[in-house]
């Protein structure tokens, strides 16, 4: 309860900041064109007939869902975290009776409502005007979708946060994050639907955490999964969240020890 109140205070300030930077948020959103570029490519390929299970409409639905999922699950806190650790501002957080992760969770979630509201017209427009697009819009499916969104965000957040904590030891954490983004974009279904990979690779990716970082909620939103598949997927996804949480805890306790040993 206590942590929740601290989070609420942090979130309120982070939300005010997001409003303060609203124009920047919009520009960021517009600059996320990678899925659109991919869509344009697939559309011209699909002119000659469907690719795997994907016709032109499927591609449109998939990449619009990808934009939505990316906006709701994307995490961009590593620059702040890295700077806080290396310039010593982490000290101020360590002097307070709370875990600094609360601050970064608040920061990461602060602009999500704004992004969601901005994307609503796009979703509605595509759902309404593009024939054959079938988004999962029933309340129960939306509820499952948002659970999967929360899971994807939690995985991506914990990965990036843990990555950022490496700044306790090294000065190249942002380079690692850039490299990680490439791997993520390629294998999570963000840029290429996993069903279009060769079956062996696809099955391997399904067994790894990648699918649950983007593809899984996209699959739900494009009505590709039955409820039992979704429930099973959520279970696996949240198990991965737990794994990444344990890794974060290990790195955090060691990192703080390191910080206390050498200072900022």
């Amino acid at each position, binding site marked *: 309860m206590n942590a929740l109140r601290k989070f609420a*205070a942090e979130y309120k*300030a982070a939300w005010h900041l997001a409003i*303060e930077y609203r124009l920047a948020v919009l520009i960021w959103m517009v600059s996320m064109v990678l899925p659109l570029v991919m869509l344009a490519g697939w559309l011209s390929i699909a002119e000659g007939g469907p690719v795997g299970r994907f016709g032109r409409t499927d591609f449109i639905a998939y990449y619009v869902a990808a934009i939505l999922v990316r906006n709701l699950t994307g995490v961009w806190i590593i620059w702040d975290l890295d700077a806080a650790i290396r310039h*010593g501002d982490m000290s101020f957080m*360590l*002097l307070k*009776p*709370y875990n600094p992760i609360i601050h970064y969770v608040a920061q990461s979630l602060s602009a999500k409502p704004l992004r969601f509201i901005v994307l609503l017209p796009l979703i509605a427009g595509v759902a309404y005007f593009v024939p054959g697009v079938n988004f999962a819009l029933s309340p129960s499916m939306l509820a499952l979708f948002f659970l999967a969104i929360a899971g994807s965000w939690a995985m991506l957040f914990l990965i990036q946060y843990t990555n950022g904590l490496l700044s306790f030891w090294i000065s190249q954490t942002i380079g690692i994050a850039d490299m990680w983004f490439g791997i993520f974009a390629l294998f999570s279904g963000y840029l290429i639907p996993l069903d279009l990979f060769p079956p062996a690779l696809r099955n391997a990716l399904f067994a790894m955490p990648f699918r649950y970082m983007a593809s899984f909620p996209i699959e739900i939103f494009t009505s590709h999964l039955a409820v039992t598949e979704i429930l099973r997927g959520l279970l696996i996804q949240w198990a991965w969240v737990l794994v990444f949480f344990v890794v974060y805890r290990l790195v955090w306790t060691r990192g703080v020890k390191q910080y206390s040993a050498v200072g900022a």
Partner: protein
Amino acid sequence: MNADISVTRLCKYYRVHHKEPGFAGSLRSFFARRYETVRAVDDISFEIRSGEIVGFLGPNGAGKTTTLKVLSGLLYPTTGDISVGGHRSYDRKDQFLRGITLVMGQKNQLIWDLPALESFEINRAIFDISRSDYLAVLKELTDLLDLDPVLKKQVRKLSLGERMKCELAAALLHRPKVLFLDEPTIGLDVTMQGRMREFLAEYNKRHGATILLTSHYMADVTALCRRILVIDHGHLIYDGAIDALVERVAPYKHVRIVTRRPIIAGELERFGEVLSMDTLEATLVVPRDHTSGVAAELLKALPIEDVTIEDPAVEEIISRIFTEKILT
């Protein structure tokens, strides 16, 4: 609680790696890093009583900030024991953190693009301060620091002095009993420095807070602290009253005279060492015990308009300690 802060044989060593400048240097340090141990704090012990204000002096790099960071729990000591308000700082227990604060004049904790009040609200939640306590403390700090006009302005639009006042307020909202202040007046103009000093003295008086403060401005220290700790190269070289240090390091006083007619150095040399002189003015360095005698002789021997006897400036004494290694 008698000793609020107790430090016993504290050492803090860092291992830092050396890098030669330039590309070749980078390459060399990539393959074979040379490490060196820096003894930032080397075997220091002291105690501070509850409610005391103590000045912590030393040149840059002497180990002041490191000591403050160890005391506030940010750094783990290499060896030695520390206790602050009954807690081992480095355990960083919530109860400990609620009782202390660390203000670093060179750093800011306030959110840059929001008004200071927003940062205060966050601290209120994090430190679990009840709404009524918060309002009471905020009112007190607003009155003492004259914050009213600045609280609702974006922090980035504040002047340095205004920002520093807000930083201090943010650091004191949870009404800590122990204050570690690292250069709290750095960069402030003389008036603002004076205001800060008055505020700290008042805070100490009202709440019986223990304050350990570093500053490069001697006036901060002489105005607030009767006791000082002097540290150099990680060693504590003095712990005691400022007055006693002055007597010990400078067993002399300055006798300043103004004469009615021009005088020459030759006339003064038998009274003491001539520190400076002008046509109608001179300052002599005279051993402490002899000052009154010398002054009387001067009055007899020369056409004196005015005599003043004073201690040398503390700045001068401190700088002598470090340049001439008087205490080491």
